[in-house]
Protein backbone atom coordinates (compact mmCIF):
# COMPACT_ATOMS: atom_id res chain seq x y z
CA UNK A 1 0.00 0.00 0.00
CA UNK A 2 1.48 3.40 -0.94
CA UNK A 3 1.69 6.34 1.45
CA UNK A 4 -1.36 8.13 0.05
CA UNK A 5 -3.48 5.01 0.44
CA UNK A 6 -2.18 4.48 3.97
CA UNK A 7 -2.87 8.13 4.80
CA UNK A 8 -6.38 7.95 3.36
CA UNK A 9 -7.16 4.72 5.15
CA UNK A 10 -5.99 6.03 8.49
CA UNK A 11 -7.82 9.33 8.07
CA UNK A 12 -10.98 7.44 7.12
CA UNK A 13 -10.63 5.32 10.25
CA UNK A 14 -10.37 8.47 12.37
CA UNK A 15 -13.45 9.98 10.70
CA UNK A 16 -15.49 6.80 10.95
CA UNK A 17 -14.51 6.40 14.58
CA UNK A 18 -15.61 9.92 15.38
CA UNK A 19 -18.85 9.52 13.42
CA UNK A 20 -19.73 6.40 15.36
CA UNK A 21 -18.96 8.23 18.58
CA UNK A 22 -21.13 11.13 17.47
CA UNK A 23 -24.08 8.88 16.70
CA UNK A 24 -23.78 7.13 20.04
CA UNK A 25 -23.55 10.38 21.95
CA UNK A 26 -26.52 11.87 20.14
CA UNK A 27 -28.68 9.10 21.57
CA UNK A 28 -27.72 9.93 25.15
CA UNK A 29 -30.79 10.89 27.16
CA UNK A 30 -29.29 12.17 30.40
CA UNK A 31 -30.82 15.32 31.93
CA UNK A 32 -29.47 17.70 29.32
CA UNK A 33 -28.01 15.01 27.10
CA UNK A 34 -24.29 14.86 26.43
CA UNK A 35 -23.83 16.81 23.25
CA UNK A 36 -21.03 16.30 20.80
CA UNK A 37 -20.18 18.61 17.93
CA UNK A 38 -17.79 17.33 15.29
CA UNK A 39 -16.01 19.08 12.44
CA UNK A 40 -13.75 17.55 9.82
CA UNK A 41 -11.44 19.80 7.79
CA UNK A 42 -9.31 18.67 4.89
CA UNK A 43 -7.28 20.03 2.00
CA UNK A 44 -5.55 19.01 -1.22
CA UNK A 45 -2.79 21.35 -2.42
CA UNK A 46 -0.90 21.88 -5.65
CA UNK A 47 2.37 23.86 -5.73
CA UNK A 48 5.03 25.06 -8.14
CA UNK A 49 8.10 26.62 -6.53
CA UNK A 50 11.24 28.08 -8.03
CA UNK A 51 14.33 25.95 -7.43
CA UNK A 52 12.57 23.40 -5.24
CA UNK A 53 11.87 19.71 -5.56
CA UNK A 54 8.72 17.88 -4.52
CA UNK A 55 6.34 20.14 -6.41
CA UNK A 56 2.99 19.00 -7.73
CA UNK A 57 0.04 17.67 -5.74
CA UNK A 58 0.26 17.47 -1.98
CA UNK A 59 -2.12 15.67 0.34
CA UNK A 60 -2.82 18.37 2.87
CA UNK A 61 -3.58 18.04 6.51
CA UNK A 62 -6.72 16.25 7.68
CA UNK A 63 -8.25 17.65 10.86
CA UNK A 64 -10.85 16.17 13.18
CA UNK A 65 -12.26 18.27 15.96
CA UNK A 66 -14.87 17.29 18.44
CA UNK A 67 -16.34 19.19 21.36
CA UNK A 68 -18.23 17.28 23.99
CA UNK A 69 -20.41 18.94 26.59
CA UNK A 70 -20.33 16.47 29.45
CA UNK A 71 -22.82 18.42 31.51
CA UNK A 72 -24.16 21.94 31.85
CA UNK A 73 -20.74 23.41 32.61
CA UNK A 74 -18.07 20.83 31.85
CA UNK A 75 -16.75 20.38 28.29
CA UNK A 76 -13.92 18.60 26.49
CA UNK A 77 -12.37 20.06 23.32
CA UNK A 78 -10.14 18.03 21.02
CA UNK A 79 -8.43 18.75 17.71
CA UNK A 80 -6.43 16.01 15.99
CA UNK A 81 -4.48 16.15 12.75
CA UNK A 82 -3.20 13.63 10.21
CA UNK A 83 -0.31 14.93 8.11
CA UNK A 84 1.29 13.11 5.17
CA UNK A 85 5.10 13.12 5.35
CA UNK A 86 7.91 12.64 2.89
CA UNK A 87 9.17 9.57 4.76
CA UNK A 88 5.84 7.84 3.97
CA UNK A 89 4.80 7.80 7.61
CA UNK A 90 1.63 9.74 8.29
CA UNK A 91 1.98 11.82 11.43
CA UNK A 92 -0.97 11.85 13.81
CA UNK A 93 -0.98 14.51 16.47
CA UNK A 94 -3.26 15.85 19.17
CA UNK A 95 -3.05 19.57 18.54
CA UNK A 96 -5.50 20.70 21.20
CA UNK A 97 -6.98 18.77 24.09
CA UNK A 98 -8.42 20.51 27.09
CA UNK A 99 -11.16 20.21 29.66
CA UNK A 100 -13.04 23.38 30.57
CA UNK A 101 -15.40 24.23 33.40
CA UNK A 102 -17.60 27.29 32.84
CA UNK A 103 -18.50 28.97 36.14
CA UNK A 104 -20.10 31.86 34.26
CA UNK A 105 -19.48 34.08 31.23
CA UNK A 106 -16.85 35.87 33.30
CA UNK A 107 -14.93 32.86 34.61
CA UNK A 108 -14.06 29.76 32.58
CA UNK A 109 -11.16 27.64 33.71
CA UNK A 110 -9.50 24.92 31.67
CA UNK A 111 -6.43 22.72 31.58
CA UNK A 112 -4.72 20.90 28.73
CA UNK A 113 -2.95 21.62 25.44
CA UNK A 114 -3.87 24.74 23.45
CA UNK A 115 -2.80 26.91 20.60
CA UNK A 116 -1.18 29.69 22.60
CA UNK A 117 -3.59 32.64 22.58
CA UNK A 118 -0.86 34.97 21.37
CA UNK A 119 -2.10 37.51 18.86
CA UNK A 120 -4.87 36.86 16.36
CA UNK A 121 -4.12 34.17 13.79
CA UNK A 122 -2.91 31.49 16.16
CA UNK A 123 -6.19 31.40 18.04
CA UNK A 124 -8.56 32.29 15.20
CA UNK A 125 -7.99 29.64 12.53
CA UNK A 126 -6.16 26.74 14.19
CA UNK A 127 -5.73 23.95 11.59
CA UNK A 128 -8.86 24.76 9.61
CA UNK A 129 -7.65 25.79 6.14
CA UNK A 130 -11.25 26.29 5.01
CA UNK A 131 -11.71 28.96 7.65
CA UNK A 132 -8.73 31.13 6.72
CA UNK A 133 -8.97 33.25 3.60
CA UNK A 134 -5.46 32.50 2.33
CA UNK A 135 -3.69 29.24 1.47
CA UNK A 136 -0.93 29.78 4.00
CA UNK A 137 -0.52 31.12 7.48
CA UNK A 138 1.78 34.11 7.98
CA UNK A 139 5.44 33.08 8.33
CA UNK A 140 5.61 34.28 11.95
CA UNK A 141 2.75 32.05 13.12
CA UNK A 142 3.14 29.09 10.76
CA UNK A 143 3.01 25.66 12.35
CA UNK A 144 6.46 24.67 13.51
CA UNK A 145 7.41 28.34 13.87
CA UNK A 146 10.35 29.16 16.10
CA UNK A 147 9.25 32.77 16.48
CA UNK A 148 6.26 32.21 18.74
CA UNK A 149 5.41 29.20 20.91
CA UNK A 150 2.48 27.95 18.80
CA UNK A 151 1.35 25.48 21.47
CA UNK A 152 0.93 25.84 25.20
CA UNK A 153 0.41 23.14 27.82
CA UNK A 154 -1.04 24.34 31.09
CA UNK A 155 -4.11 26.02 32.54
CA UNK A 156 -6.13 28.96 31.30
CA UNK A 157 -8.60 31.29 32.99
CA UNK A 158 -10.73 33.29 30.55
CA UNK A 159 -13.99 35.15 30.23
CA UNK A 160 -15.79 38.40 29.60
CA UNK A 161 -15.05 41.45 31.71
CA UNK A 162 -18.40 42.07 33.38
CA UNK A 163 -21.17 42.37 30.82
CA UNK A 164 -18.97 44.33 28.43
CA UNK A 165 -17.54 43.44 25.04
CA UNK A 166 -14.08 43.16 26.60
CA UNK A 167 -12.55 39.80 27.41
CA UNK A 168 -9.41 38.41 29.05
CA UNK A 169 -7.23 35.30 29.22
CA UNK A 170 -4.63 34.42 31.83
CA UNK A 171 -2.47 31.35 31.28
CA UNK A 172 0.13 29.43 33.26
CA UNK A 173 2.00 26.44 31.86
CA UNK A 174 5.10 24.66 30.64
CA UNK A 175 6.09 26.97 27.80
CA UNK A 176 8.69 25.90 25.21
CA UNK A 177 10.56 22.65 25.66
CA UNK A 178 14.29 22.28 24.96
CA UNK A 179 13.22 21.83 21.34
CA UNK A 180 12.04 25.42 21.05
CA UNK A 181 9.23 24.96 18.50
CA UNK A 182 7.53 22.31 20.64
CA UNK A 183 5.70 22.65 23.96
CA UNK A 184 6.54 20.69 27.07
CA UNK A 185 3.95 17.96 26.61
CA UNK A 186 5.37 15.73 29.32
CA UNK A 187 6.51 18.32 31.80
CA UNK A 188 8.45 21.56 31.90
CA UNK A 189 12.00 20.73 30.81
CA UNK A 190 13.56 23.47 32.95
CA UNK A 191 10.95 23.64 35.71
CA UNK A 192 10.31 27.29 35.02
CA UNK A 193 6.71 27.93 34.02
CA UNK A 194 5.57 30.34 31.37
CA UNK A 195 2.68 32.72 31.94
CA UNK A 196 0.65 34.94 29.72
CA UNK A 197 -2.11 37.52 29.78
CA UNK A 198 -4.28 38.65 26.90
CA UNK A 199 -7.16 41.06 26.47
CA UNK A 200 -9.53 41.74 23.63
CA UNK A 201 -12.41 43.94 22.55
CA UNK A 202 -15.01 42.48 20.20
CA UNK A 203 -18.29 44.38 19.98
CA UNK A 204 -21.12 42.79 17.97
CA UNK A 205 -22.11 44.49 14.76
CA UNK A 206 -21.57 44.67 11.03
CA UNK A 207 -18.10 46.18 11.41
CA UNK A 208 -16.79 42.90 12.87
CA UNK A 209 -14.17 44.71 14.93
CA UNK A 210 -11.86 42.49 16.96
CA UNK A 211 -8.78 43.98 18.58
CA UNK A 212 -6.52 42.88 21.38
CA UNK A 213 -3.10 42.39 22.89
CA UNK A 214 -1.12 39.61 24.56
CA UNK A 215 1.97 39.34 26.71
CA UNK A 216 3.95 36.14 27.30
CA UNK A 217 6.94 35.44 29.55
CA UNK A 218 9.06 32.30 29.77
CA UNK A 219 12.53 31.06 30.67
CA UNK A 220 13.93 28.67 28.08
CA UNK A 221 16.75 26.15 28.12
CA UNK A 222 17.37 25.30 24.45
CA UNK A 223 19.46 22.24 23.62
CA UNK A 224 23.18 23.02 23.98
CA UNK A 225 22.50 26.71 24.77
CA UNK A 226 22.57 28.80 27.96
CA UNK A 227 19.33 29.75 29.69
CA UNK A 228 17.35 32.48 27.89
CA UNK A 229 14.65 34.82 29.21
CA UNK A 230 11.86 35.42 26.70
CA UNK A 231 9.24 38.16 26.64
CA UNK A 232 6.72 38.32 23.81
CA UNK A 233 4.24 41.07 23.11
CA UNK A 234 1.54 40.97 20.47
CA UNK A 235 -1.19 43.33 19.31
CA UNK A 236 -3.73 43.01 16.54
CA UNK A 237 -6.68 44.62 14.86
CA UNK A 238 -9.10 42.67 12.68
CA UNK A 239 -12.29 43.42 10.82
CA UNK A 240 -13.96 40.00 10.72
CA UNK A 241 -16.18 40.65 7.75
CA UNK A 242 -16.25 39.95 4.05
CA UNK A 243 -15.95 43.36 2.39
CA UNK A 244 -13.40 44.25 3.43
CA UNK A 245 -11.75 41.69 5.69
CA UNK A 246 -8.71 43.18 7.40
CA UNK A 247 -6.09 41.66 9.71
CA UNK A 248 -3.06 43.52 11.03
CA UNK A 249 -0.91 41.79 13.62
CA UNK A 250 2.33 42.88 15.28
CA UNK A 251 4.64 40.70 17.36
CA UNK A 252 7.67 41.80 19.34
CA UNK A 253 10.02 39.53 21.25
CA UNK A 254 12.96 40.15 23.53
CA UNK A 255 15.47 37.38 24.32
CA UNK A 256 18.21 37.75 26.90
CA UNK A 257 20.90 35.33 28.01
CA UNK A 258 24.03 35.73 30.10
CA UNK A 259 25.97 36.21 26.83
CA UNK A 260 23.86 38.57 24.73
CA UNK A 261 20.45 40.07 24.02
CA UNK A 262 18.37 40.37 20.87
CA UNK A 263 15.03 41.52 19.56
CA UNK A 264 12.56 40.11 17.07
CA UNK A 265 9.80 42.09 15.41
CA UNK A 266 7.20 40.98 12.98
CA UNK A 267 4.23 42.60 11.29
CA UNK A 268 1.81 41.53 8.62
CA UNK A 269 -1.25 43.12 7.10
CA UNK A 270 -3.88 41.28 5.11
CA UNK A 271 -6.81 42.72 3.17
CA UNK A 272 -9.49 40.75 1.36
CA UNK A 273 -12.67 41.87 -0.34
CA UNK A 274 -15.71 39.74 -1.21
CA UNK A 275 -16.94 40.77 -4.64
CA UNK A 276 -20.61 41.51 -5.20
CA UNK A 277 -23.32 40.49 -7.65
CA UNK A 278 -22.58 37.54 -9.90
CA UNK A 279 -18.98 37.43 -8.68
CA UNK A 280 -19.91 37.15 -5.02
CA UNK A 281 -18.30 33.73 -4.67
CA UNK A 282 -14.87 35.28 -5.28
CA UNK A 283 -12.75 37.00 -2.66
CA UNK A 284 -9.40 38.42 -3.79
CA UNK A 285 -6.79 39.04 -1.12
CA UNK A 286 -3.28 40.30 -0.54
CA UNK A 287 -0.94 40.04 2.43
CA UNK A 288 2.42 41.64 3.10
CA UNK A 289 4.67 40.48 5.93
CA UNK A 290 8.03 41.33 7.38
CA UNK A 291 10.00 39.50 10.07
CA UNK A 292 13.27 40.92 11.45
CA UNK A 293 15.53 39.02 13.84
CA UNK A 294 18.64 40.57 15.42
CA UNK A 295 21.77 38.65 14.50
CA UNK A 296 22.70 38.74 18.20
CA UNK A 297 19.41 37.26 19.35
CA UNK A 298 20.47 34.33 21.58
CA UNK A 299 17.42 32.23 20.73
CA UNK A 300 16.74 32.90 17.03
CA UNK A 301 19.70 34.92 15.70
CA UNK A 302 21.54 31.93 14.26
CA UNK A 303 18.53 30.48 12.46
CA UNK A 304 18.34 32.96 9.58
CA UNK A 305 14.66 33.67 10.08
CA UNK A 306 14.55 37.14 8.49
CA UNK A 307 11.66 37.20 6.04
CA UNK A 308 9.85 39.50 3.66
CA UNK A 309 6.91 38.26 1.69
CA UNK A 310 3.91 39.24 -0.35
CA UNK A 311 1.12 36.82 -1.15
CA UNK A 312 -1.83 37.58 -3.40
CA UNK A 313 -4.64 35.37 -4.50
CA UNK A 314 -8.31 34.66 -4.85
CA UNK A 315 -10.64 32.48 -2.86
CA UNK A 316 -13.53 30.90 -4.77
CA UNK A 317 -16.35 29.61 -2.52
CA UNK A 318 -17.85 27.34 -5.13
CA UNK A 319 -19.76 25.39 -2.47
CA UNK A 320 -21.02 26.36 1.00
CA UNK A 321 -18.50 23.90 2.45
CA UNK A 322 -15.65 23.80 -0.05
CA UNK A 323 -13.34 26.42 -1.46
CA UNK A 324 -10.63 26.64 -4.12
CA UNK A 325 -7.84 29.14 -3.50
CA UNK A 326 -5.18 30.26 -5.99
CA UNK A 327 -2.18 32.12 -4.59
CA UNK A 328 1.12 33.51 -5.83
CA UNK A 329 3.94 34.35 -3.45
CA UNK A 330 7.13 36.33 -3.60
CA UNK A 331 9.23 35.63 -0.54
CA UNK A 332 12.72 36.59 0.61
CA UNK A 333 14.21 34.30 3.23
CA UNK A 334 17.19 35.34 5.35
CA UNK A 335 19.02 32.06 4.86
CA UNK A 336 18.04 30.90 1.36
CA UNK A 337 17.35 34.01 -0.74
CA UNK A 338 14.22 34.88 -2.66
CA UNK A 339 11.64 32.55 -4.18
CA UNK A 340 8.46 32.81 -6.21
CA UNK A 341 5.80 30.17 -6.00
CA UNK A 342 2.29 29.32 -7.10
CA UNK A 343 -0.22 27.47 -4.94
CA UNK A 344 -3.66 25.98 -5.36
CA UNK A 345 -5.64 24.69 -2.42
CA UNK A 346 -8.91 22.79 -2.33
CA UNK A 347 -10.18 22.99 1.25
CA UNK A 348 -13.39 21.66 2.74
CA UNK A 349 -15.27 21.22 5.99
CA UNK A 350 -18.08 18.93 7.04
CA UNK A 351 -19.85 17.66 10.09
CA UNK A 352 -20.36 13.90 9.97
CA UNK A 353 -23.02 14.06 12.65
CA UNK A 354 -25.68 16.34 11.24
CA UNK A 355 -26.53 15.39 7.67
CA UNK A 356 -26.92 18.43 5.46
CA UNK A 357 -26.87 20.97 8.30
CA UNK A 358 -23.25 21.00 9.43
CA UNK A 359 -23.63 24.06 11.59
CA UNK A 360 -26.68 22.95 13.55
CA UNK A 361 -26.66 20.29 16.22
CA UNK A 362 -29.40 17.72 16.43
CA UNK A 363 -31.50 17.26 19.51
CA UNK A 364 -33.24 13.92 18.99
CA UNK A 365 -34.17 13.55 22.62
CA UNK A 366 -36.39 16.62 22.31
CA UNK A 367 -37.75 16.00 18.82
CA UNK A 368 -41.50 16.45 18.59
CA UNK A 369 -43.99 16.08 15.80
CA UNK A 370 -44.87 19.24 13.97
CA UNK A 371 -48.34 20.12 12.83
CA UNK A 372 -47.41 23.37 11.11
Amino acid at each position, binding site marked *: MNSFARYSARLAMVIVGITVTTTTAAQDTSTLGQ*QISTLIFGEIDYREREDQGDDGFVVGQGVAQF*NVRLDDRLSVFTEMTATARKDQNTKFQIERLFVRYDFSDQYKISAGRYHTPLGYWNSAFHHGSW*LQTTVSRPETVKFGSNVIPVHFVGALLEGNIGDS*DFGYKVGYGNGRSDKINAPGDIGDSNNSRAWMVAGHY*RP*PGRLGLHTGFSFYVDEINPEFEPEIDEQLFGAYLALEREAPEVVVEYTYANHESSLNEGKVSSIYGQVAYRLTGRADKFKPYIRAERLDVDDDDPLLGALGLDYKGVVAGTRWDFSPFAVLKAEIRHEEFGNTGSRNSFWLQLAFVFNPGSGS*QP*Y*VARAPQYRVASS*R
Partner: protein
Amino acid sequence: MKKLFVIFALTTMVFITRLGLAEDSAVAIVVHPNVQVSDLSTGQLRRIFLADQQFWPDKSRIVLLVRAPEADERKMVLDRIYEMNESQFRKYWIAKIFRAEVAALPKIVFSSNMAQELVTAIPGSITFIPSSEIDSSIKVLSIDGLLPDQPGYSLH
Protein backbone atom coordinates in the same frame (compact mmCIF):
# COMPACT_ATOMS: atom_id res chain seq x y z
CA MET B 1 -54.16 50.57 -21.88
CA LYS B 2 -56.62 48.23 -20.24
CA LYS B 3 -53.90 45.58 -20.00
CA LEU B 4 -51.56 48.09 -18.41
CA PHE B 5 -54.22 49.03 -15.88
CA VAL B 6 -54.80 45.37 -14.97
CA ILE B 7 -51.06 44.78 -14.57
CA PHE B 8 -50.76 47.91 -12.42
CA ALA B 9 -53.74 46.88 -10.28
CA LEU B 10 -52.40 43.35 -9.78
CA THR B 11 -48.92 44.63 -8.95
CA THR B 12 -50.36 47.07 -6.44
CA MET B 13 -52.44 44.32 -4.83
CA VAL B 14 -49.41 42.06 -4.52
CA PHE B 15 -47.39 44.92 -3.04
CA ILE B 16 -50.14 45.80 -0.55
CA THR B 17 -50.54 42.13 0.40
CA ARG B 18 -46.79 41.80 1.02
CA LEU B 19 -46.80 45.05 2.94
CA GLY B 20 -49.66 43.71 5.03
CA LEU B 21 -47.71 40.51 5.79
CA ALA B 22 -44.67 42.53 6.71
CA GLU B 23 -46.75 44.71 9.04
CA ASP B 24 -48.10 41.60 10.80
CA SER B 25 -44.89 39.62 10.87
CA ALA B 26 -43.23 40.80 14.05
CA VAL B 27 -40.88 38.22 15.50
CA ALA B 28 -41.27 37.53 19.20
CA ILE B 29 -38.35 36.50 21.39
CA VAL B 30 -39.56 33.75 23.69
CA VAL B 31 -37.92 31.90 26.58
CA HIS B 32 -38.48 28.97 28.90
CA PRO B 33 -41.04 29.94 31.61
CA ASN B 34 -38.44 29.66 34.39
CA VAL B 35 -36.00 32.16 32.88
CA GLN B 36 -35.84 35.06 35.34
CA VAL B 37 -35.67 37.74 32.67
CA SER B 38 -38.54 39.70 31.13
CA ASP B 39 -36.73 42.35 29.08
CA LEU B 40 -33.52 42.50 27.05
CA SER B 41 -31.77 45.38 25.36
CA THR B 42 -30.92 44.98 21.69
CA GLY B 43 -27.26 44.67 22.70
CA GLN B 44 -27.99 41.88 25.20
CA LEU B 45 -30.14 40.08 22.64
CA ARG B 46 -27.28 40.21 20.15
CA ARG B 47 -24.76 38.92 22.67
CA ILE B 48 -27.04 35.99 23.55
CA PHE B 49 -27.73 35.02 19.93
CA LEU B 50 -24.04 35.35 19.07
CA ALA B 51 -23.23 33.15 22.10
CA ASP B 52 -21.00 35.86 23.54
CA GLN B 53 -23.27 35.57 26.58
CA GLN B 54 -23.96 31.93 27.43
CA PHE B 55 -25.48 32.24 30.92
CA TRP B 56 -28.59 33.92 32.31
CA PRO B 57 -28.13 36.24 35.30
CA ASP B 58 -29.05 33.35 37.65
CA LYS B 59 -26.02 31.44 36.18
CA SER B 60 -28.14 28.86 34.35
CA ARG B 61 -27.01 27.90 30.84
CA ILE B 62 -28.66 29.57 27.84
CA VAL B 63 -29.85 27.07 25.22
CA LEU B 64 -30.27 28.65 21.81
CA LEU B 65 -32.89 27.29 19.41
CA VAL B 66 -32.67 28.50 15.82
CA ARG B 67 -35.24 28.02 13.07
CA ALA B 68 -34.10 26.09 9.99
CA PRO B 69 -33.26 28.00 6.77
CA GLU B 70 -35.92 29.51 4.51
CA ALA B 71 -38.30 30.61 7.30
CA ASP B 72 -39.11 34.34 7.13
CA GLU B 73 -38.48 34.82 10.85
CA ARG B 74 -34.99 33.32 10.45
CA LYS B 75 -34.23 35.75 7.66
CA MET B 76 -35.31 38.65 9.87
CA VAL B 77 -33.25 37.43 12.84
CA LEU B 78 -30.16 36.93 10.66
CA ASP B 79 -30.58 40.41 9.23
CA ARG B 80 -31.55 42.35 12.37
CA ILE B 81 -29.77 40.50 15.18
CA TYR B 82 -26.85 38.67 13.60
CA GLU B 83 -26.40 41.23 10.79
CA MET B 84 -25.23 38.34 8.60
CA ASN B 85 -26.37 36.45 5.52
CA GLU B 86 -26.73 32.64 5.51
CA SER B 87 -23.16 32.11 4.36
CA GLN B 88 -21.71 34.37 7.05
CA PHE B 89 -23.97 32.76 9.67
CA ARG B 90 -22.73 29.28 8.73
CA LYS B 91 -19.09 30.36 8.82
CA TYR B 92 -19.65 32.19 12.12
CA TRP B 93 -20.82 29.03 13.91
CA ILE B 94 -18.16 26.79 12.37
CA ALA B 95 -15.53 29.25 13.58
CA LYS B 96 -17.19 29.59 16.96
CA ILE B 97 -17.16 25.85 17.62
CA PHE B 98 -13.67 25.39 16.13
CA ARG B 99 -12.27 28.12 18.38
CA ALA B 100 -13.86 26.33 21.34
CA GLU B 101 -15.82 29.44 22.22
CA VAL B 102 -18.93 27.26 22.47
CA ALA B 103 -19.17 23.60 23.36
CA ALA B 104 -22.38 22.98 21.45
CA LEU B 105 -24.06 24.50 18.42
CA PRO B 106 -27.60 25.92 18.42
CA LYS B 107 -30.35 23.37 18.15
CA ILE B 108 -32.33 23.55 14.96
CA VAL B 109 -36.12 23.68 14.97
CA PHE B 110 -38.19 23.01 11.90
CA SER B 111 -41.46 24.79 12.70
CA SER B 112 -42.99 27.35 15.03
CA ASN B 113 -44.86 24.55 16.75
CA MET B 114 -41.62 22.67 17.41
CA ALA B 115 -39.98 25.88 18.66
CA GLN B 116 -42.83 26.47 21.13
CA GLU B 117 -42.76 22.91 22.43
CA LEU B 118 -38.98 22.89 22.85
CA VAL B 119 -38.76 26.30 24.47
CA THR B 120 -41.24 25.23 27.12
CA ALA B 121 -39.46 21.88 27.61
CA ILE B 122 -35.75 22.86 27.73
CA PRO B 123 -34.66 24.86 30.79
CA GLY B 124 -32.83 28.06 29.90
CA SER B 125 -33.88 28.00 26.25
CA ILE B 126 -34.53 31.01 24.06
CA THR B 127 -35.83 31.22 20.51
CA PHE B 128 -37.84 33.37 18.11
CA ILE B 129 -41.33 32.81 16.72
CA PRO B 130 -43.67 34.93 14.57
CA SER B 131 -45.78 36.85 17.06
CA SER B 132 -48.94 35.79 15.24
CA GLU B 133 -48.18 32.14 16.08
CA ILE B 134 -47.48 32.27 19.80
CA ASP B 135 -50.04 31.09 22.31
CA SER B 136 -50.72 32.41 25.80
CA SER B 137 -48.60 29.78 27.56
CA ILE B 138 -45.36 31.11 26.05
CA LYS B 139 -43.20 33.64 27.87
CA VAL B 140 -42.48 36.54 25.52
CA LEU B 141 -39.64 38.97 26.26
CA SER B 142 -39.82 42.67 25.61
CA ILE B 143 -36.92 44.18 23.67
CA ASP B 144 -35.80 47.62 24.82
CA GLY B 145 -39.02 47.73 26.86
CA LEU B 146 -41.35 46.99 23.96
CA LEU B 147 -43.45 43.90 23.21
CA PRO B 148 -44.11 42.71 19.64
CA ASP B 149 -47.53 44.34 19.43
CA GLN B 150 -46.27 47.76 20.52
CA PRO B 151 -45.22 50.53 18.14
CA GLY B 152 -41.47 50.87 17.76
CA TYR B 153 -40.72 47.19 18.43
CA SER B 154 -37.43 46.47 16.68
CA LEU B 155 -38.17 43.06 15.15
CA HIS B 156 -40.95 44.06 12.77
